[in-house]
């Protein structure tokens, strides 16, 4: 088990956790009003997308990993 595999595993697991948390928080906040809450919603959405991207990178779907 090499370092890269651990990193990927970490990215996948943590990516799932963070993604779920981000989207759950977005769902909870969906009806919040006020300027700052609108901004929070946008940022939570992007955060969730970021978590998904990291997860996909961990799964080697996107991004580049050297062989071995």
């Amino acid at each position, binding site marked *: 088990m090499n370092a*890269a595999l651990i*990193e*990927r595993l*970490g*990215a996948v697991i*943590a*990516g799932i*956790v*963070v993604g779920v*948390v*981000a989207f759950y*928080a977005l769902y909870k906040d969906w009806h919040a009003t006020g*300027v*700052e809450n609108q*901004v*929070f919603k946008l*940022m*939570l959405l*992007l*955060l969730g*997308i*970021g*978590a998904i*991207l*990291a*997860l996909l*990178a*961990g799964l080697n779907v*996107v*991004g*580049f*990993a*050297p062989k071995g």
Partner: protein
Amino acid sequence: MTAASLPLDSHGNVDQLYIETRELRLQGFLLFLVSDCVLFASFIFAYLYLRNSGQGWPPPGIQRLDVAFAAWNSVVLFGSGATMHYALENFKHGNFMRYMWFLLATIVLGAGFLGGQAYEYTHLIYGEHVTWWGSGIFGASFFTLTGMHGMHVFIGVCYLTVLVLQSAAGVYTRGKFFGITAGTLYWHFVDVIWVVLFSIFYLL
């Protein structure tokens, strides 16, 4: 907004001055983030422009960036965004201790991200001989953008540390906590910028 979270002045009256001042600060802070965003956007434009200037990417002699560690490190930063969000939520609902723990967790994760970035820089500079000035447009755009972002994270970590100290000293009350809101906005902003940088440097 419930009655309990209204800002009160020392006589127990609703503090109209605070409400209006907070509005100004919120707008001002959001506009500051907008202009900061433009700063990043300009450098991202520069990076994409150079990347497409016809020499191929990555430029000859430079390895493509390895995504594995970066993915893990990104998740660390994204996680800190989630903890920061819950820190603010808990503060709003009056769970002061849980707020403090979430805030500390955010600081630890943010510092962890910086450590990870330092590790990656070391690897690139000493392992692959990629430097800021000596590796053509790759070194220029990569180190400038990630370095700028790292500087923002560092400032954010410092700011959050100040928040911890201020909160412990009781500066923020149920109705008056704009400092924490601003901190959360800033931290989310730094996270979201990293989503973009991560995508364009490691995934594209």
